[in-house]
């Protein structure tokens, strides 16, 4: 014990850092809100995303107006009924079906006209009408393609039975790499990891440093021999640990509960997460040392950290389809690079070309942001009366 202490006295910087670190840890442990944000929120968010956010559609109520009593039409309805995506509701007439849509009891109407059987028999075009509730355009588009697929299956059955003339000339044979069943959970959970780390790295960090300014503890600490580098290190370490904890929780739940594969190496995930978290911590520290007020720091970290991580990262919304200006801006968002790497790591594996690029950009961002944070952490008060 005394040997250890002697060692500490010989390195006063280490003693100071450890002391400050201990204080930071005690504060985290005592404040339920920081634990809630850093460790409970990741769990809640993962479950919310895993269960609550899904871009797939299942059991879509579809109203079918069957005006053609023929076999072909019945095959079509049977194909819809057999599909897991649909729940067929029969409607007597078009007005009745439209009312179902208006009352949100059906999301689509398929009207099979009397001419269907004749048209098919004649080998000519045989149109069916599909009416979609277009409010949720993404879902409407999915429903449209599900209906197409159901019709395709019906035709194939009829061809097998020899009822359909000829065969289609070209068939598109899709094969999906990395996520064959196109499960949106596999896509969402890896991206969510970025969001979880943003919360701890930017929001919580910005708040705790701003709090030191606001409560006047900063002035008391500034005049002690604690150096800015030691201050930053002691602030970084606990929140780095919390952030990585959140990351492990979210990925762990993703893999075990939601069956998301982790095809890449854990080491790569750990390394890239660390780089991203360091960049986030850097941003959080820059924000808080610039504004020095908790409330403003919270606003700034939501606007500069959370919103971009959600909207400009490709986590939910595809960047490739946004206006060019947005695409350009997204390049300075750390989360954009991390989400790309995370998708690759979880679903594709250690693909060097992607990972090295993303890791490189993140490392650069972390370096720049931490360097700015170091410059901003002065041992002096601001120009105006603080």
């Amino acid at each position, binding site marked *: 014990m005394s040997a250890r*202490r002697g060692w*500490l*006295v010989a390195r*006063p910087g280490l*003693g*100071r850092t*450890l*002391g*400050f670190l*201990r*204080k930071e840890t*005690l*504060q985290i442990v*005592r*404040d339920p809100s920081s634990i809630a944000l850093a460790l409970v929120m990741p769990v809640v968010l993962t479950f919310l995303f895993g269960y609550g956010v899904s871009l797939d559609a299942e059991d879509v109520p579809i109203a079918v107006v069957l005006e053609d009593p023929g076999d072909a039409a019945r095959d079509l309805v049977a194909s819809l009924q057999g599909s897991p995506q649909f729940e067929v509701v029969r409607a007597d007439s078009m007005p009745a079906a439209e009312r179902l849509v208006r009352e949100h009891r059906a999301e689509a109407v398929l009207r099979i006209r009397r001419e269907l059987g004749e048209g098919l028999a004649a080998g000519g075009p045989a149109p069916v009408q599909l009416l979609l509730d277009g409010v949720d355009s993404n879902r409407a588009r999915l429903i449209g393609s599900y209906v197409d697929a159901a019709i395709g299956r019906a035709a194939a059955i009829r061809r097998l039975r020899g009822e359909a003339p000829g065969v289609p000339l070209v068939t598109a044979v899709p094969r999906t790499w990395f996520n064959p069943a196109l499960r949106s959970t596999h896509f969402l959970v890896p991206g969510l990891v970025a969001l979880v780390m943003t919360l701890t790295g930017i929001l919580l960090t910005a708040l705790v440093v701003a709090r*030191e300014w606001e*409560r*006047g*503890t*900063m*002035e*008391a*600490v*500034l*005049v*002690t*021999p*604690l*150096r800015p580098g030691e201050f930053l290190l002691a602030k970084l370490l606990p929140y780095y640990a919390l952030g990585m904890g959140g990351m492990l929780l979210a990925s762990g739940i993703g893999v075990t509960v939601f069956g998301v594969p982790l095809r890449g190496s854990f080491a790569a995930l750990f390394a890239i997460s660390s780089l991203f978290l360091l960049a986030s911590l850097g941003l959080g520290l820059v924000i808080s040392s610039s504004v020095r007020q908790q409330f403003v720091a919270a606003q700034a970290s939501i606007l500069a950290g959370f919103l971009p991580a959600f909207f400009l990262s490709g986590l939910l919304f595809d960047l490739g389809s946004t206006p060019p200006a947005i695409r350009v801006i997204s390049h300075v968002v750390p989360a954009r690079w991390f989400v790309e790497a995370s998708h690759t790591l979880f679903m594709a594996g250690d693909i060097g070309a992607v990972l090295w690029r993303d890791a490189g950009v993140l490392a650069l961002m972390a370096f720049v942001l931490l360097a700015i944070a170091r410059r901003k952490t002065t*041992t*002096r*008060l601001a*120009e*105006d*009366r603080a």
Partner: protein
Amino acid sequence: MIDAPAALSFDGVTRSFPDRHGGRTTALRGVTWLARAGVVTGLVGPDGAGKTTALRLAAGLLTPDSGAVRVLDLDPVAQVGVVRDRIGYMPQRFGLYEDLTVGENLRLFADLQGVPHAARPDRFAQLMRIAGLGPFLDRLAGRLSGGMKQKLGLACALLKEPDLLLLDEPSVGVDPVSRRELWKIIDGLVAGRGIGVVVATAYLDEAERCGEVVVLDRGEVLATGAPAGFAAQQRGRVLELEPAPGEPPRALQVACAELPGTIDSTIRAGRVRVVTASPPRVEQLAAARGARSHAGVTPSFEDAFMAQLAGRHERLPVGRRERAVEPAADDVAVRVRDLSKRFGAFAAVRSVSFDVRRGEIFGLLGPNGAGKTTTFRMLCGLTSISDGEATVAGRDLRRAGRLARLQLGYMAQKFSLYGALSVVENLRFFGRAYGLRGRRLRERIQVGLEEFGLVERRDDEAGRLPAGYKQRLAMAAALLHEPAILFLDEPTSGVDPLARREFWQRINAVALGGTTVVVTTHFLEEAEFCDRMLIMARGAVLALGTPDEIRTLARTAAHPEPSIEDAFILLAERQGDAA
């Protein structure tokens, strides 16, 4: 002493800050002074004098615009690392971590200042004993009372025994007993290790204890030197008047204050103390009023300080002089019987009973943690009553709280009006909240603005007013609805001597107008302004009576003319021994 090396020196230092209008206000204007090792140097001056800026410059927290600051013969900016290893600094609002316990705060600052582990147990124990915090090591700092926080802050700054100690108003909100303890620590450091200490303070009796004093006002050094030397200049200009039997000292004090040539007039130990440029005038007045004049009084530093500042600050006209109501024992404004307050198992107030008479100034005194603030908050309806009864202006607080509150005005210890709102908007809000409106509201606001000299500041943002004006505004707001009783919670804590005098003048006028005033304070010399006072300790009543009666309790052959402070400390010690 002159040969002692300079621990801190300012040479032609100027420092300004940007103001709201794009210009700059100068906080320090080419000041030159020095503090020697082995001496306590007092930095004294009213609010806005530049005391805090000077200490921050010395700690290297700010850089000077021009001029040179040297700390222990080092540059506090360029050699910041070395300097901070050797200084201790206690900011005005010491930043304790409120979610850490007392012990954890100590340990943190010991770590940060590199206090060797071997030295810690003794040092901690010593500091905690002096600060009286020993039993509270495991309590969260946020749960300590204001004075205890202040003592803990000072303990944290003293952990290391630095070569230069900078203290920014260390004893604001600290009771007299604790203040004496603080000074024992400081004197011990100076005598034992010969370190330099610089103390910015608003307590002039503390300045008197300093080896040297620097008087600052509006960014300029007015004078430097030993306090005794200052005081000597006033020899022959200080008189003490003993009022004629039956005349309250307050009335005589007001009369003296109005005499031309009067620099200062206060009440000390039942007598009126006057500093004047023309002693004969005061003698005449005394003769006319049948008061006995004691000439040849030894001047104090406070007298000299007031003389230094005379003419540099505006003086307020004295308000009303005649009493509207004569307080009588059977005309009760606040009636308290067996009042108790428990927080869990802890009894903060234990069965306290007293009456406050209508139209009197009633003081509530006691050391930190005595339960006076809790009692006070119960009377204002801010804290619920556990047991007993309290009646305010004839309304039972427990049953008719709202009606009782209509009758009372309240001024919090900290400025608690809305900082973003202008002066007049604040008044309008509080007026309306008390149900005033229309012409009546406009009239009351106008009266308030005029009476408190706020007319020209009516549209200024309240949060940006100078401290003195903030206090005037707070009082104007509390009096807007003409309450029967005015509650003041440590109104003069952290207020400079000038503003304190002005404030008591106003309180006096308010009381003369028939409003009952209940006030808590740490400044025991201010207790002289009260008609009667209650001294509390450990949740119970220690003494109750007029200033004269309280002083009598401490009168001994060795000490024939004790001050209230002497009596207070005696009582507190006696109770401490009994416990």
